[in-house]
């Protein structure tokens, strides 16, 4: 199978970016309605696996747009306004796992799960890190509040969601990937 360049953005990427963003927006909203009990102020968002998975399956740009635009859509549906740095952080959560796309050939292999999870974790750290640190120049909070108040709760829940759900989606995707003929 011919491998595409990681920065390619053709018709397929256009459609999957849109799909990923819409899915992330809808599932964020929907799974927020189904309240998962969590500790303290931790809000569980299982839908964060969508930009990570779309990144892993379709490349970094698809992952980035899925996260960035998906977060905007989720906020638009929920009436939460527009929070640029958090949207960007969500975009990075999809972009960075996208760099794993070229390393993954078999979506069922344990090695692929490990690669996808490692890149997803890195994506969460960078994405939520940027969004949390942005509060230092936007809201003026100090570093410890940015880390303890914003980064740790957001990153922890997103990592847990990602490492569980991304491999499950990869296995399901493996079943249909042959059918697409791409």
């Amino acid at each position, binding site marked *: 199978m011919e491998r595409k360049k990681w920065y390619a*953005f*053709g*018709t*397929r*990427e*256009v*459609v999957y*970016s*849109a*799909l990923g*963003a*819409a*899915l992330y*927006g*809808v*599932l964020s909203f*929907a*799974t927020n*309605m*189904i309240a*998962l009990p*969590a500790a303290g102020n931790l809000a*569980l968002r*299982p*839908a964060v*696996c*969508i930009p990570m*998975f779309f990144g892993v399956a379709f490349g970094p740009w698809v992952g980035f*747009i899925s996260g960035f*635009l*998906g977060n905007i*859509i989720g906020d*638009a*549906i*929920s*009436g*939460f*306004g*527009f*929070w*640029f740095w958090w949207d960007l952080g969500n975009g990075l959560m999809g972009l960075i796992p996208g760099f794993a796309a070229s390393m993954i050939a078999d979506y069922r292999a344990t090695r692929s799960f490990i690669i996808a999870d490692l890149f997803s974790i890195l994506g969460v750290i960078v994405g939520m890190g940027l969004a949390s640190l942005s509060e*230092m120049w*936007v*809201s*003026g*909070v*100090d570093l*410890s*509040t940015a880390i303890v108040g914003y980064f740790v709760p957001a990153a922890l829940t997103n990592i*847990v969601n990602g490492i*569980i*759900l991304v491999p*499950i*989606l990869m296995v*399901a*995707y493996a*079943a*249909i990937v042959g*059918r*697409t003929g791409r």
Partner: protein
Amino acid sequence: MLIAWRYRERNTLIQKLDPRARWIFLLAVMFSVIQFWDLRFLAFFMGLSLMYYFPARLTWKETRRVWTFVLILVVVIIGINAVITGRGGPTEILRGAGHVLWEAQWAVPGVGWTIHPIITVEKIVFALAQMMRMLTIAILFIPVAFTFNPNHYGVTFRRLGLPDKVAFSMDLAFRFVPTLARDFSLTLDAQRARGYEVEKLEGGLLAQIRKMAPLIVPVTINAIVGAEDIVNAMDLRCFGLRPRTWLHELRYAPRDYVLIAVSAALLGGAILVRTLLRVGDFWVPDAVLRLFGF
């Protein structure tokens, strides 16, 4: 599940403005306000934001949820952070002793740490400035979801300079939302018919997340399978070979040029005031000091 856009046509001046001009204004004000800690400047930007917010005619019922969230965030995280620790932003200003209102010293048993909270007039003013800054940004951006037509996002960002494909992707994403919401609803019903109890997900945190898979996986995989048809249809129509046209064309009206000029003046003025005049740093009003008896 019914997903409804929060947007509706309200026949307001805000909605009559070109969306590009509005985005330029919003970003200009945001990048201006984050440069200041002086309450006078922050009050000006807050007033400006309110002048933008109120004509949007949003009701309390519509915005109650987001305001609750924002107020909790602002008051609890930022307010307490600023008053108790006093750090963040212009830290060096707050390192001085300041005008102390209250202080204490507590030892943490077992570890030998000492907590030494000090509340000063400066910290209170700083907390107020921090809250004003965050509220100003919230006031600016909360109306986005309620007043921007989702069908215009694609063309708006294309005309703001995004590549055609990315703008089309945005446009397509907003169109996918109702279909995917319906698919999610059907999947949820189907899984419930099979005995899946989404309201009673048992087990630990990890088990609960894993149990969301029967909802997330079918919706995602079905959507991917369906998307292949869209990709093929677009490829057959030679998508991406030429610049595309848009169903809805945006045209600037004179009022939009005025708004863009105001936005540019605001941002340019803010940068000028901060960099050349070096005005707008943290400032404690004498009236506040007198109020606390200093």
